[in-house]
């Protein structure tokens, strides 16, 4: 199979050793992907003097001071705590409402189901920029400005539709006979759903949770607009540092590395579902 995808033999200059072109392509692409990340990690272990004055491919003067700064300075680490709080809230809310809805969409026809499903999709696609100002006014008027729940609720705008679509995609794979058998056996809906159905789509729930977590974690515009001090997310802390005179590059790089970690840690578990998650459960 491998030689089918290689370039045809005739086009290869004679005399050169046979190289596996697939390997070369993949290595080049992965190097392209990893270089900027490598540079960020590299910078996070350097002192500012080294960053600004010397050009080195690895830290000559290895330091963990940047990470220490972030983990000890409240201005930095509260950013992470705030982000984690609203992201977790958002994930829980999104999944809690999306699970029953996805079940309804995957099992039943009802009046307006198609329109509703489509309307959810439009919210996933909606540009946050359109919602920034109205959200600001809405949450200010109900006194929720600069709270975690405001950001969590704002992010449900795109995360609930995402969760519904992903979960529906997984639920369709579960045969309907299982539901019917359970009902015949005398299970009520609630008990059936929690005891039998949810374990069956456990991987789907995990994937949906992962994507809710991720899309809430990576979002900047809404979380920055809706917070000022008390719930300021790490993303906003980072962008507000930039532009001030004398940017602390080392700390900024370390902060960046720390925001990548959560995704990097769990990615292995969802690797086979990542395409499905990004495509709203439709691959």
């Amino acid at each position, binding site marked *: 199979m491998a030689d089918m995808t290689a370039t045809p033999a005739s086009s290869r200059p004679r005399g050169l050793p046979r190289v596996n072109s697939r390997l070369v392509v993949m290595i080049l692409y*992965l190097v392209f*992907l990893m270089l900027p990340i490598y540079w960020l990690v590299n910078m996070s272990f350097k002192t500012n003097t080294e960053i600004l004055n010397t050009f080195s491919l690895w830290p000559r003067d290895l330091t963990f001071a940047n990470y220490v700064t972030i983990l000890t300075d409240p201005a930095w680490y509260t950013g992470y705590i705030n982000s984690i709080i609203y992201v977790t809230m958002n994930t829980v809310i999104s999944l809690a409402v999306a699970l029953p809805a996805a079940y*309804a969409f995957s099992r039943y026809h009802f009046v307006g189901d198609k329109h509703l499903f*489509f309307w959810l999709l439009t919210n996933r*696609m909606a*540009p946050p*920029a359109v919602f920034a100002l109205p959200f600001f006014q809405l949450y200010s008027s109900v006194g929720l400005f600069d709270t975690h729940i405001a950001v969590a609720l704002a992010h449900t705008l795109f995360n609930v539709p995402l969760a519904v679509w992903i979960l529906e995609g997984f639920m369709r794979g579960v045969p309907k006979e299982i539901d019917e058998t359970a009902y015949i056996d005398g299970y009520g809906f609630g008990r059936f759903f929690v005891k039998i159905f949810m374990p069956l789509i456990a991987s789907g729930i995990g994937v949906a949770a992962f994507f809710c977590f991720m899309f809430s974690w990576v979002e*900047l515009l809404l979380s920055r607009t809706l917070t000022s001090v008390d719930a300021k997310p790490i993303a906003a802390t980072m962008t507000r540092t930039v532009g001030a005179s004398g940017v602390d590059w080392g700390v*900024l790089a370390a902060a960046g590395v720390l925001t*990548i970690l959560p995704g990097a840690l769990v990615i292995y578990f969802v690797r086979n579902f990542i395409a499905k998650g990004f495509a709203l459960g439709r691959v």
Partner: protein
Amino acid sequence: MNKTVNQKAWFLVLPVLVLVAFSAVIPLMTVVNYSVQDTFGQNEFFWSGLIWFEDMLASERMWDALGRQLMFSGIILAIQVPLGIFVALNMPKSGVWSSVCLVLMSLPLLIPWNVVGTIWQIFGRVDIGLLGYTLDAIGINYNYTQDTLDAWVTLIVMDVWHWTSLVALLAFAGLKSIPDAYYQAAKIDQASRWKVFRYIELPKMTGVLTIAILLRFMDSFKIYTEPFVVTGGGPGNATTLLSIDLVKMALGQFDLGPAAAFSIMYFLVILLVSWVFYTVMTNLDKQEG
């Protein structure tokens, strides 16, 4: 799947409906409200009809931003889709290396968008960034904060870096669903590599590729954070895409009326593309079932 008609299913959907109505419909109505009113401050509004829409449609600023936006989306699609397919074709199909590739390729997708911006902001700087420094060292005059072309190239390379993997992963998922028998038949027929791609792999990937193209179009169409962090819309207005312009107008200058009219037209485009997306999705679902 054969679904049964059950109107009680509405109760299961109700929480979602209420929540999304709160976070989507109310704000959207605010926008509609602003788009047809004018104010002299002091929170006194009066009806102004469609004047903001006329203003926006006549405003060069919006058309320029739209033009830049379409150019941006067009360029990144033209690069990401072929590149993504090419990478997917070269990915190992199974085994440990397949997992390694999947994990490494997904990594850029999971990086917070502002960090993506920060990474490239640093990476491209002539004084401290690997890319900027290297380009400078080999004698290329590169400065993404001053030069329009450099700013564009930086943004496009950044987006290619960030999102090509998505196209590749989707295409890979499509490729994996092709049974081996197809390839064996092609081998017996002595089909060339190109013919295998054209008549076996491409048709099997059409569905996922359509999804990939639509997703990439939508997401690039509403891109905000990355260019905001890297160039802030500059130099001048050279990289001011739709979302950046809208945020400037709404939150920066507080021009509520025009910004609202702008938002609604922006949203209509999104609605249209979403509808195409939905149609494609439902057709795919039908083919499966």
